[in-house]
């Protein structure tokens, strides 16, 4: 948690949380574990014993490191521009699941999608893209200009009728329900990478 003025005052005064605090939203795990070593210049905090975190402040810009990064980025950009990556694979977040996909893949999704059969879909949440000699890892997502994943809706069916049964012995309790899930089949058409790394 950032040590800004409000948190410092709350801790120092030992104040109780007021009754109408906002409901704490559940953050994803990656956000809970992030440390703030780089303080943005917009928030000014007067220097006290608790105004800065106890670990050292890394500089936002380190010239040697930037040179090394620039070399790697130029190399990968060159590979992408030439097209020397072979078959690309991507990790895509779709329908609350993560899928590792390539071209010509078939995906079965266990729910209904608001698209007609034959529609072309673009999957925007791409977490990772890889080729023969490089991998681009998003933190957590890659930008829309960098990767494009297109898919087509092939089939919209229902699953086989699954029986959900509950039973307690010696209690005359028995329930039977037939569950039929809607399913959608997608075919991944293309994964495109554009040389826009910086």
């Amino acid at each position, binding site marked *: *948690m*950032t040590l*800004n003025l409000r948190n410092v005052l709350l801790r120092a005064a030992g104040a109780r949380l007021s009754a109408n605090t906002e409901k704490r*939203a559940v*953050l*994803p*795990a*990656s*956000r809970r*574990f*992030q*440390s*703030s*070593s*780089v303080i*943005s210049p917009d*928030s000014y905090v007067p220097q006290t014993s608790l105004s800065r975190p106890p*670990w*050292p402040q*890394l500089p936002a810009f*380190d010239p040697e*490191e930037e040179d*090394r*990064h620039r070399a*790697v980025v130029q190399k990968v950009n060159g590979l992408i521009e030439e097209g020397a990556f072979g078959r690309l*694979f991507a*990790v895509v977040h779709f329908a609350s699941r*993560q*899928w*590792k996909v390539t071209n010509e893949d078939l995906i079965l999704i266990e729910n209904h999608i608001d698209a007609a059969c034959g529609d072309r879909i673009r999957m925007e949440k791409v*977490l*990772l893209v*890889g080729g023969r000699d490089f*991998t681009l*890892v*998003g*933190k*957590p997502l890659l930008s829309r200009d960098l990767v494009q994943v297109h898919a087509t809706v092939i089939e919209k069916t229902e699953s086989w009728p*699954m*029986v*959900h*049964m*509950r*039973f307690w012995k010696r209690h005359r309790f*028995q329930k*039977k329900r037939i569950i039929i899930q809607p399913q959608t089949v997608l075919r991944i058409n293309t994964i495109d990478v554009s040389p826009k790394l910086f």
Partner: protein
Amino acid sequence: MVFLTLSCWTRNRGPDRYWRVQELLKSARHFRGRKNRCYSLAVRAVRRAFIYASKARKAKRRSMRQLWIQRLAAASREQHMKYPALIHNLLKCSVELNRRVLCDLSITEPRSFQALTALAQARRTEGLRAALGEGAEPPGVFSRITQLQGISQSQRS
């Protein structure tokens, strides 16, 4: 002589008992022994089968996750790292790949998985060095302690 009251005493119990029985026996046809033919035995066996299937569908998710964790532990130990360190440091780098996909990458894309373990290892040593007081960056890996901009900043500040 005509006996008319005899037909008043007969009961029509229901026209479709045969089809109800067949519907249940159809789910029991692949069972072993008399359970696949005799209705009374089949009722009990089919009920148990449905209950086991319902419970197993819930347990499958648990056991799949357990399998992924075991595989990730083995794969990360091949790269001289432990599973908790891998997961924790990938989360600290804001890489939100789930265990299933990480497991698939470790099997089908070993070089990408190696890169991810290197990233986690670098973040780990960086954090350790920062905690011990040195500010030096470990060589060879593009790992910065980056932050999610925008939403996370406004939530926390």
